[in-house]
């Protein structure tokens, strides 16, 4: 099989805090193919967003990317110059953020902001840029697009703003879209509309999507594969159906038990006991050990490696050492 569009290996990003180094992203491996959606799932603070920012090389001080490779279309983004990265951002890799009100500049009209992104990458300018903007808004399902172009962000509804953000994101026809919790700030009906829009974009443009979310409902409906992240590590990566039907890692299992099922009041909700470890003073062993219902002696001593568990499936847990089907999954995608 050909190389995936985005292939991240051993990516590590640290933040230096006054208490010490905080390994927000610690040796993360993931890959996204063209036309595929990979969901990156995990609770707040597990390093999902920092992973996304690291791929874009947008991590700001006191954060620093300390190691790894991020291969995008055959080139390592971490070896590119700032100027080369600028050309890539928005043009070939675009990003959508959680809160569309704060990501749109309050002082400019919608038209200004779309045209600006077209201008930065020399796609179009002048009246051509304006026409392009209208067609982009129409493609995002915005009614009365020419009028909407004159609106300021605060005059739009939440769903409308996120559509505008998406219009800006796809304006230069990117190959990869990184969506950082694109629907978290929206209500449920809008979530579905925006996710449908994303799905359509993926279909039409063979867009690769890295979808960051903590909403397992969104994961189940809109992604092909999912990676579960915990305390800076990927703990399990699997095709979505397999992950949802039979999660392997104790953390992934716990995560699924936290989600209520409609029409199944007989299944009790069980929270995961305890809380996320102190990222500055991490225990030597598995980071989930203090909260793990199946913790073993050795879990406290060393970090388990990733074990291969069938096609496209890896898990970071000693429970699967015996059941491993192939060699440790280092570097396979």
């Amino acid at each position, binding site marked *: 099989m050909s190389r995936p569009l985005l292939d991240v290996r051993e990516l590590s990003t640290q933040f230096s805090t006054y208490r010490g180094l905080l390994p927000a992203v610690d040796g993360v491996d993931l890959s996204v193919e063209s036309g595929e959606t990979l969901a990156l799932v995990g609770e707040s603070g597990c390093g999902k967003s920092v992973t996304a920012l690291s791929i874009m090389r947008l991590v700001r001080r006191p954060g620093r990317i300390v190691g790894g490779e991020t291969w995008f279309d055959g080139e390592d983004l971490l070896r590119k110059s700032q100027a080369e990265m600028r050309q890539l*951002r928005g043009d070939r890799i675009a990003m959508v953020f959680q809160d569309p009100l704060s*990501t749109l500049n309050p002082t400019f009209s919608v038209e200004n902001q779309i045209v600006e992104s077209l201008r930065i990458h020399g796609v179009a300018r002048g009246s051509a840029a304006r026409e392009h903007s209208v067609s982009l808004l129409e493609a995002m399902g915005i009614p009365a697009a020419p009028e909407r172009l004159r609106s300021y962000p605060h005059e739009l509804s939440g769903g409308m703003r996120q559509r505008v953000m998406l219009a800006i994101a796809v304006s230069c026809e990117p190959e990869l879209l990184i969506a950082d919790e694109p629907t978290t700030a929206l209500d449920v009906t809008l979530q579905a509309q925006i996710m449908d829009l994303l799905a359509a974009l993926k279909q039409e443009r063979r867009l690769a999507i890295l979808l960051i979310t903590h909403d397992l409902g969104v994961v189940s409906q809109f992604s092909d594969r999912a990676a579960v992240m915990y305390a800076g590590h990927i703990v399990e990566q699997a095709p979505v159906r397999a992950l949802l039907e039979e999660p392997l890692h104790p953390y992934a299992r716990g995560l699924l038990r936290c989600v209520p099922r409609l029409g199944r009041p007989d299944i009790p909700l069980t929270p995961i006991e305890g809380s996320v470890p102190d990222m500055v003073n991490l225990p030597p062993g598995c980071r989930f050990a203090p909260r793990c219902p199946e913790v073993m002696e050795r879990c406290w001593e060393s970090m388990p490696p990733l074990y291969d568990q069938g096609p496209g499936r890896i898990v970071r847990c000693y429970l699967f050492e015996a059941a491993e089907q192939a060699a440790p999954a280092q570097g396979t995608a």
Partner: protein
Amino acid sequence: MAERVSEEEELESVAATTPGMLRLLLGNRVAVTAGLVVIAFFAIGLLAGVLTPHDPNAQHPEAIRAAPFWRADADARFLLGTDSLGRDLLSRMMYGARVSILLGVVVVLLTLVVGAGLGMLAGYFRGRFDVVMSRVVDTLLAFPFLIFALAIMAATGPNLVALVLALAFKGWVDFYRVARGDVLAARAADYVTAARGLGASTPHILLREILPNIVPPLIVLATLRMATIIIAEASLSFLGIGVPPSIPAWGTMVADGRADVGSAWWIATFPGLAILALVLSVNLFGEGLRDVLDPRMRKT
């Protein structure tokens, strides 16, 4: 409900370019009146050469200390009377408006550009530049302005360039602090990260993304600083170390009339009132602007 309204107001204030802002400002009667007075002063200063009935420096020995028009001993040629050298007060005050406004505008623009520019750089890049600049600013803040201006002007003698530099020496500090603080907040804003994500360069982000968002407080500050500068210039001129004596200035005129306050009170009073009227109007206009641009300061 109340929360909703305030949120909308806040949002509205951010979009400084919407016509709603202008309507709000026009609804503020005090600010509109003050603005009109300021515009009138600007017009008088600008057109002083055309409007004045007399040469401001022409002496009329036959009409020394002539009284203003409503008094029985008034000289019909001089509407507001003359000073101790027989110079027409009205004409001198018109030229005085020109100097005050010119110095105010030049000094404010200079300090705005320098202060806001340095403040934006310090706030955006942080690091050593920020540390050094902020220490310089702290030092300047501890510096008594009048003593410093006295020293400079005493050394160079009254001339306009030295006066501008003396007035600007400390004036940029306020713009620096406002710009630095606002950029510090804005650089962490999501729209800045989003712009980076779109491939925007650093100059683009500073000038096109951040600057428009920090302009409203800078405009307000510029207006209020203008009033301060006009007072400072008048004070230095009053002390005889401001505007050169050959150029009519309100501060100098007040100083000239000081000796005659008992017998010819109008010589010192009219230019004093002019200073009061201009500074008050500029301040009231600035406050009106602030009320519109900053909802937290809005009274109702």
